[in-house]
């Protein structure tokens, strides 16, 4: 009888201990998530400010190029979203996925929006042709660098996870 009581008491204590531990873990996870979210928002805010600054240089072409602002804003929204998700899921494999997605998105969006790199526009009987192939080439190369970085991150992450049991 005594044994049963003691056993029950012990089990109850252990349960309470586990509950407290779980509560601690949940709070820690929530705190970490909140921190990551704030960090991601701050980064996005800074990036958006930079975008607004850079946009001020291109604003003069807005009336001549229909849809220029829309194109730029669509790009920024998707780029920022992928960045935010990447930051929220940092230290997980999803961060690597979002980084790869972001690098691929930059490349794909640039190629699709600038097409073959030669930009044609007609305004009031005047035809304007801007050859952006140099810019496109540089941007694609830098995107490839970003893609390489994301791949390295993914390899590094998998490598670290694989090393974990041996370290224990």
């Amino acid at each position: 009888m005594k044994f049963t009581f003691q056993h029950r008491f012990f089990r109850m204590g252990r349960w309470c201990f586990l509950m407290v531990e779980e509560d601690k873990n949940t709070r820690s996870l929530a705190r970490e998530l909140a921190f990551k979210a704030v960090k991601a928002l701050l980064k996005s805010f800074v990036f958006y400010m930079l975008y607004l600054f850079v946009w001020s240089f291109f604003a003069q072409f807005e009336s001549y190029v229909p849809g220029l602002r829309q194109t730029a804003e669509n790009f920024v929204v998707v780029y920022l979203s992928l960045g935010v998700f990447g930051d929220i899921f940092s230290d997980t494999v999803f961060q690597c996925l979002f980084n790869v997605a972001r690098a691929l998105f930059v490349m794909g969006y640039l190629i699709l929006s600038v097409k073959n790199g030669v930009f044609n526009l007609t305004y009031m009987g005047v035809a304007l042709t801007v050859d952006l192939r140099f810019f496109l080439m540089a941007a694609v190369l830098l995107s490839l660098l970003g893609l390489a970085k994301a791949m390295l991150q993914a390899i590094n992450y998998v490598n670290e996870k694989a090393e974990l049991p041996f370290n224990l």
Partner: protein
Amino acid sequence: MDVSIRMVGLASTFFWILLVAFFASAAYSVKDLRLNFEKPQLRLTQEGYAVLSIPINIENGGFYNLGEFNLTTKVADLNGTKITEGSTLIPLIKKGAKIVAFHNLTFSVDVLLEKGSHYLFNDSSFAVAALISVKLAEVIPVQVSSNFSVAWGAPFYNFHLGRPTFEPLNFTHLRIAVPISFENHAPIDVNGEISLYMYNSEGKLVGQGESAIVAPQGALYTSSIVFYVQMLEITEEGFFEVYLSTPFLSYGPLVFPYG
């Protein structure tokens, strides 16, 4: 591994900033690029060519040099036949530079007249295809092209002979005065000579006269050519032949019947 990934990230960010900053500033520089075409000037060469010279003022107030500025124009008549073309190349326009260049279009007036005397006596227009190409910051090629028409003012617009007056000079000869008039719509002064030949109904030359022309740009020219003929050779009907001669063109005959 972490360090190398971080370095790759840093390098990528650094080059992205460089690229975007360069591209944005190059695009922004377009705002400070001024290009003005001044009033064209027409001059004549000793070889009988007319040279239309268009002064171009270029002011590069941007952040970068401009490379390979090229202006090409093609002038055609209303039927699309090429009359002339010209090209002006400026290899480098430094930042902050102000340049005046001349875009010259050379055309032979005689060739123009062969294609149609229409331009001599009637106002018309020419189709001009212009193409400007430049390398922004010496790297980004930009082309601007446009097709437009340029009004042509005829140097002998509305040329006609008035009713000739016949006055007896003596028992054998008549004094004939033939009024002539035209408007000079051309962008240059017309100075030269008009020769007039009078033929009777049998086609025999009965008299001739000449007169100097001084017709400033945009002016109405009126004058009379006076000459003397033998009374017996005159018939009720006949025709005049007119020859026009200026330093840049000779044209004739223009036939005007009388009677």
